[in-house]
């Protein structure tokens, strides 16, 4: 089966890691389920679904996007803002 199959639905896992390395610990996470089997929402779990990004790969998640490493703007080097190390994973499953 391919992702273009009309009967397939995407599940998305977003992991935020402690460093830019995929094998570093998870510090934040989100999940979205296109199969509608599960409804995820803010604050619904206090324990990460995987210890690291690598653990997610080993469970069959396919990485499709990672945040870039950008240089720090002059004068703004110490300003923190959004979570830095964001990794998007997906699985494709048949609609039940």
């Amino acid at each position, binding site marked *: 089966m391919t992702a273009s199959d009309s009967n397939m639905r995407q599940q998305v896992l977003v992991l935020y890691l402690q460093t830019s390395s995929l094998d570093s610990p998870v*510090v*934040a996470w989100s*999940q979205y389920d296109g199969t509608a089997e599960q409804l995820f929402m803010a*604050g619904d779990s206090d324990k*990460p679904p995987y210890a690291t990004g690598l653990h997610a790969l080993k469970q069959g998640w396919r990485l499709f996007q990672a945040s870039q490493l950008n240089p720090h703007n002059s004068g703004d080097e110490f*300003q*923190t803002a959004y979570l830095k190390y964001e990794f998007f994973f997906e699985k494709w499953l048949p609609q039940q």
Partner: protein
Amino acid sequence: MNMALNNTQMATFAARGFLRFDAVVPEEINHQFLSDIGDVSPQPDTVKGHYANIMRSSVVPLVSPGIKLSQAYPPSNALNKLIQVPQVKGAISSLVGVDPVLDHHFLHIAFPPNYWPEDAPAQRSQHTHQDSTIDPRAAFDIQLFYFPHDVTANMGGTRFIPGSQYRRVSEAAIARYQNIKGQQHVVCTAGTVIIFHMGLWHGGGLNKSEQLRYMFKIRLCPSERQVRLWDMNEAEHAQSARPIFWTDGSNPPDNLHAILTNPEPWYEADTERLEYINRVKFWRYISGDKNFDADYWLTRIENDYV
């Protein structure tokens, strides 16, 4: 009674962005507040209907932004009694001065499932967000979160992220983050007040109980330069630098430098150090001491000879 914040409380606020005062508001004030807003005998209603009834009743005063807090509430109003509670009054004056300005207030209600129509979309918790908008000031506002009744785990108490207050983000742009390691969910007894730095990330939880959940929020702004407003222990502030990296292993938890360099479990490895720097900058602002440092984080990068 002087209930101003002490150094440990102020450093905790600088590091974590909140202070929690459990059950400090007397029961008679909690009861008056709930009675005033019409929660004496709650009947299942609609969400819109319940809000409309409370707003029509005018028991929560209508106030325009910019009014002095001292003029915002009638003396007999429960909210006036709330801000006179010694611990609350002491914390307000320590953080935003004795004569702060009221930005706005709002009664947040988390409705139980029976208030929603059967065909309504599945209810969700509120996205995590930072209130107001991008705010680059050195000065800071505070937000009082008042919980007038017991909040159990299934009532969806406010969720917040300790140590997020210096992250400069744009309101709900952070909604993508569903869960963050170390997030807290408010579970408390009646009369609890939690004071947030304006930048603290938070969101309302999903109420799965059979009861309405109320939380009254008041945003306060300083009307003076926020410097040395708390019960400052000068000697502790002026303590000399402690050994860093190579140490004897002792680390008293209430040491000012230790509090300011205590990480949160969700910080990235590198931004953890930036958060220490931002905490030290905050402490310099509120102490007026531009040379203050904790564990050499700012001194090291200020050692320049251009």
